[in-house]
């Protein structure tokens, strides 16, 4: 059959008739329907977008601008370019605070993660005893970090419960809070104690999604408990591990409250984190432009670390899958 014959095929008379103008099937009606749908979606999204813009995007943009000024919190701000950012590298106190922040974030994150995972692996089965110990682990997480800091300060201070007890045995005092190195270790320890319970909750939830069949198959094949955990369980919950790691890191990179109440940045500034410096030093000194530059740097570092951790975990997961 030729092309011309096809064009005049009587079959065309069976095609549905062209819709009348205004009919729901016309192109104009479809466009109108799409537009209405779009408008409705926009309307539904608008409150969330408005809140997000007002609460997040605008403050970030304003912070970026303020970090390039000499604003003192109340007078007119003068644009000074990158001077505040250069000061970040000139002030030895700031460099030390960054170092302390990284140490606290790195060891604190790993500590919370490791302890949380070990604890969760022990308590993954459902039982009343396990529920009690899970609640016990989570308990510090529900108490204000400020209160926890004051509590541990009363326990670990020179005249605290531990040193007073040690003194009775002719030992000490131990410099939990007055030795520069030990004070950082104490700070990390208290942070890990206070925060690992949250990791336990995450991991217990993740562990309960690991199929029992896999574990039983491994047991039948003679795998030890350690091998099962290492080769099956942990790889299967690795996305949750990544999330926990990122949450720990982001949380600890801006740690402030527990520092204030436990060590107040001392001794000799050895436990001053960057968030502590921003809030207790720079803002208090009406050096808001500089404080904002530090806050922006903190935000960037936090974002970069989160992306890095997630990327590294992804690469590990892909390598394991291959």
């Amino acid at each position, binding site marked *: 059959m030729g092309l011309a014959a096809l064009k005049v095929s009587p079959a065309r008379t069976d095609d549905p008739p062209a819709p009348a103008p205004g009919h729901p099937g016309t192109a104009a009606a479809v466009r109108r329907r799409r537009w209405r749908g779009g408008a409705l979606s926009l309307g539904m999204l608008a409150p969330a977008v408005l809140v997000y813009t007002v609460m997040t995007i605008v403050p970030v943009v304003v912070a970026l601008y303020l970090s390039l000024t000499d604003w003192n919190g109340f007078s007119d701000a003068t644009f000074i370019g990158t001077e505040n950012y250069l000061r970040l590298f000139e002030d030895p106190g700031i460099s030390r605070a960054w170092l302390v922040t990284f140490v606290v974030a790195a060891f604190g994150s790993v500590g919370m993660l490791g302890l949380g995972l070990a604890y969760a692996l022990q308590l993954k089965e459902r039982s009343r005893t396990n529920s009690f110990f899970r609640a016990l682990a989570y308990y510090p997480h529900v108490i204000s970090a400020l209160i926890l800091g004051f509590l541990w300060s009363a326990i670990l201070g020179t005249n605290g419960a531990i040193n007073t007890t040690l003194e009775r045995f002719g030992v000490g005092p131990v410099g939990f809070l007055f030795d520069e190195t030990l004070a950082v270790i104490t700070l990390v320890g208290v942070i890990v104690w206070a925060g690992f319970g949250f990791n336990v909750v995450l991991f217990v939830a993740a562990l309960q999604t690991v199929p029992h069949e896999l574990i039983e198959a491994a047991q039948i094949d003679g795998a030890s408990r350690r091998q099962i955990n290492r080769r099956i369980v942990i790889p299967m919950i690795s996305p949750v591990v990544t999330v926990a790691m990122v949450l720990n890191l982001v949380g600890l990179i801006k740690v402030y409250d527990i520092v204030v109440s436990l060590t107040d940045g*001392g*001794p000799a500034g050895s436990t001053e984190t960057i968030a502590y410096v921003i809030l207790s*030093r720079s803002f208090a000194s009406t050096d808001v432009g500089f404080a904002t530059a530090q806050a922006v740097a903190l935000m960037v570092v936090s974002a970069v670390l989160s992306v890095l951790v997630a990327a590294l975990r992804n690469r590990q997961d892909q390598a394991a899958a291959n």
Partner: protein
Amino acid sequence: MNTRRRFLTAGVLAGAVLTASACGGGDDDVAGGEGGDTTLRMIVNITPNLTEQFWNELFDKYEAENPGITVELELTGTIEAEAKLQQDLAAGDPPDIAQHVIPNPETAELFVDLSDEDWAPDTPLYDDYAIDGGHYVVGVGEQIQSLVFYNKAAFEEAGVDATQLQTIAQFEDAMRKLQAAGYQPLQSAGQWVTGAQFTMLADAGVLTEEPDWVIERKNGETSFADSGYLRYFELYESWLKEGFLTQSALGLEYPDGQAAFLAGDSAMYIMGSYFVPAADEAGLSDQIGVFPVPADGTYPPGQFGNMAQPYTVVEASDAKEEAIDLVEWLVTDDEAIEIQLAADGNLRKGFSYDVSSLGEGVQAVLDASPMVIVKQGERQPVHGYAEELNTQVQSLFTGSSAGDVAANLDSWWDSQR
């Protein structure tokens, strides 16, 4: 469609209302509000002496005398009063009065200039705190801080005569004797106490001899490393080596250090006059004596001092007149003054309250002092100095050398805008 449009409109309006209410401040403190009532918000500093209960009881009296006025405390939490004020201003929710905030040339514009108030010039240290001729802060009394409180029993046991401790050498000799008698010679503590005690000691020595030292440091004409301060850093370094001061003191909070001295664990405690109420409260005033800090130059040296309970009226307040009235009452009403002086062991010429023997001792030190050293106005150090000094003095406790500490302070000072 109408329903949908109405729904969308309602959403937008709700958003606008939310935004407006988030941006707008409350008008609780607007003068002449409903029924003519006014609520005055005041930032107050809570200390072991000036408790929340103390402030509430004080303002109950004012409220009773001034119907229609309510004073609301604004506590600072873990931050300084100045930072709290800044937070409030940034949030568009300024308080009416701030206690314990000292204006500087940069922040003076935040406060009402009280120069035109006829009662203001009679308040203590009025001119010492002036900024370019303006008077933005007034206080209730004076605090002096270059004081050494001592345990009388420990001195007797060690055979030390407090009246003979005038030079640094005599002071060191006394510390050796006290140490030999089994006492910790000097009580210190962590937090702000470490740097403050150093200031109480060193400022009396250095600034009595060179009252313009801070001005010269600002002009780059002197430095910590090339002035009398180095000598005091070296003294601290050697006292730490000899055990007159101990590193473990850094693990004590301010009240703990005070309690350790009151408990008789240590023989001497360098502190301001505000220690007296704590000793009175503990019922130990008669067992404690006081003398001025030792100095190698003029003796007795000037007393490092400051305005006690300073008040500022916030320029952005909606109830400035009422706020000024309250501040006037706080610093001029006889009863209010005496209550405040007694609570914090402060002093004011022409006013007296029931003081213990220790309080009388402090008054005697002030009477004999050649000057009160006030580091305010043009003699105010750069912002953040007290905190940095505290960090550096603590680093002496953790092993830094006196030379390093002086150099660090100089480089920090020079790096400040």
